[in-house]
């Protein structure tokens, strides 16, 4: 089943023997999407529509989304109407994590459970769900360990953590866990001169940019992105009703720009900077992304008040795989790192 948001409760899918496949990507011809979407919709959404229309996702049995932003909601409904997947479900989560909100989220999850039971012909069992939760908790823990090692100085390229993170969202979890456990970072020294970077954005999926940041002397020690560390944070309580624990976990996630308010995003950004000793923030945004572009000026202001340098650029998504690192982005990154090095020498 394809999933469009990191709030989709993958544990429930797993409990029905359904493989969750996180969807992202860059189409060869983004213009294919123009038949169904306007060009002022963000590149990730247009790319997904183009990929879907090119038949890349024909192997999927269905599509599941948790309501987040306007553009992905539109994508979900337009996809469902035009591509007619055999199964589709929107889960509407509340925006807070109060007791009543958890009750409500449990009801939404139950709706998903009933629909999946119908679709797969399998009964739901709490024990199976508890088992699925244990597997995903294990996998998230392994990935968090990699982030921690990197933060503590291990020479793990961020792009490798990123790739493992994608595998976590694509492979059967039983295959991912041994693969992640066997991962050994390349033996290389980390230069003491590297600058600790926090990355922020939504679907940040351009490996060339990630690699370039580290080539220029940055070390991405943490991120605040949909495909990165944000979905790995938090723990699912082991005692009690597993469905309730799962609901509380998803509602208690680090703040997402589409769902959270500004104070909680600001707090999370500053806490992450403090706990990772990040020296600078790079915001990688998607053109036309309302949630992130609305938050950015105020987050930038907070960083400036605290003397933390930041860089922001927007990706336009044209031109296929790996084309995010345009000449302009390259120049801005180089200028930013020159400035950071200058500061370090002073």
């Amino acid at each position, binding site marked *: 089943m394809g999933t469009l948001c990191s709030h989709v409760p993958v544990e429930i899918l797993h409990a029905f023997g359904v493989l969750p496949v996180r969807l992202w990507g860059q189409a060869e011809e983004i213009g294919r999407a123009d*038949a*169904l*979407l*306007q060009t*002022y*919709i963000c590149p990730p959404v247009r790319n997904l529509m183009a990929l879907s229309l090119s038949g890349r996702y024909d192997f999927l049995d269905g599509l599941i989304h948790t*309501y987040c*932003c*306007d*553009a992905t*909601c*539109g*994508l979900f*409904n*337009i996809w469902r*109407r*035009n591509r007619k997947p055999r199964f589709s479900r*929107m889960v*509407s*989560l*509340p*925006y*807070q994590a109060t007791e*009543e*909100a958890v*009750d*409500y989220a449990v*009801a*939404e999850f139950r*709706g998903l459970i009933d629909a999946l039971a119908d679709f797969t012909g399998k009964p739901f069992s709490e024990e199976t769900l508890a088992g699925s939760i244990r597997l995903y908790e294990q996998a998230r823990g392994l990935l968090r360990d990699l982030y921690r090692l990197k933060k503590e100085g291990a020479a793990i390229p961020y792009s490798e953590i990123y790739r493992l993170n994608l595998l976590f969202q694509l492979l059967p979890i039983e295959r991912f866990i041994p693969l992640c456990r066997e991962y050994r970072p390349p033996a290389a020294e980390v230069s003491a001169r590297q600058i600790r970077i926090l990355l922020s954005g939504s679907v940040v999926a351009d490996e060339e940019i990630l690699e370039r940041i580290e080539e220029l002397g940055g070390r991405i020690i943490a991120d605040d992105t949909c495909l990165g560390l944000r979905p790995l944070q938090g723990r699912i309580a082991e005692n009690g009703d597993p469905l309730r624990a799962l609901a509380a976990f998803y509602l208690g996630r680090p703040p997402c720009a*589409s*769902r959270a*308010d*500004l*104070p909680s995003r600001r707090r999370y950004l500053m806490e992450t900077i403090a706990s990772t000793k990040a020296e600078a923030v790079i915001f990688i945004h998607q*053109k*036309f992304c*309302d*949630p992130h*572009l*609305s*938050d*950015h*000026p*105020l987050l*930038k*202001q907070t960083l400036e008040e605290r003397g933390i340098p930041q860089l922001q650029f927007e990706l336009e998504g044209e031109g296929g795989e790996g084309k995010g690192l345009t000449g302009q982005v390259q120049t801005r990154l180089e200028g930013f790192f020159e400035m950071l090095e200058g500061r370090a020498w002073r």
Partner: protein
Amino acid sequence: MEMKKTRKRLQANGRLREIITDFYADGHRAKAEGRPVVWIPPMNGMIELFYAMDIHPVFPENWAPLCAAIGTNRQNFTSAAERGFSGDLCGYFRNNVGYALAGIEEPNQPLGGLPKPDFLISFGAGCIPTQKTFQVLCDHFRVPVIRADLPQVAMEEIKEHHIRYGVVQTERVVRFLEEKTGHRLDMDRLRQAVIYTDEACRLWDEIMALRATVPAPFSAAEIGIMFVMVTRHGTKIAVDFLREVLAEVKEKVARGEGVIPNERIRLFWDNIPLWYNMAIFNYFEKWDAVVVAETYSAAWSLRLDPERPMESLVYKSLVSYPLVSCVSLEKRLELIVKAVREYKIDGAILHSNRSCKPISMGQMDIGRVLAEKLGCPSVMFDGDHMDGDRFSFAQFQTRIDAFMEMLRERKNL
């Protein structure tokens, strides 16, 4: 030459102008008299609650069209841009943020400007630009804020647990308001407000149904009457005004009086109007064409139960945004197909609106469904409901003129 001011023909427009002026004057009166002023999003706004508690509601989203009509939107956009907000963001957002952060301190604002809020309601609900507008406002005005939830659910998917959760959230808002004002919510007054809203919705439907008459008694140029549906729900003002409109429209229908002398082509308008250029609706008249229905025609087709006031308001709030956006794409398509049938539409004008992604997404499907199901042709043009710089009248003309000629040929005119 490009005309900006629309030609309105309903007598009720005189009364509407008074209602608009009075609504804004009332805000200033409230401030002067020490009555609390609250800024709220119109979608999920629960206006009735505020009127029942003598709190004056201010709707930035209703203020923005006024700024666009008068022209202060440009300065507000500049103020937002100076603070780093991207020009790609929704025009309501840029206008309201620019106004709140700068324009509010400037003299010569339309209708005396907006009174500053004594507190703010920040909803997790509605479209992202509305949510974000309120987050910026909460950050700027250092006043008490309550954050409440109302999840987005397609109208056809609303279940008991959605209503239940909405009621819990509304009760939180009530407790917050009671604490801040020191007054208890009087349930009888709330019930009365719900009765007014229910009657307003009923009248709205009755008025809109009369537009199915050939010739149509009024066009989209008069859509300003929805001002009372946004700002005066829960009050007698809306009910009295809509009764007046209904009576006038009924008389027009009885006399067989149309918008123009010789109506030959009937159009549907999808998406928000160009608030800075409402004369666009008169543009079609040179082909004897009238825009007889639009996105908002069916936006308040619901009934409220005064015996269950909270549940009714929650339901109204839950459907208000999905019904006109891509959240309820299937329901929206169903309503448009119904409108095209009932209003005897010859062609649809789809305003692809850079300022509103959630209403614009799905328009390609709308065009195709109308063509395939009803053989109704449509045309799409690029525009923006707030920002005139993103709308080219020349390009609009090129597309629309060709479309209108095609419609004329189809009808053998």
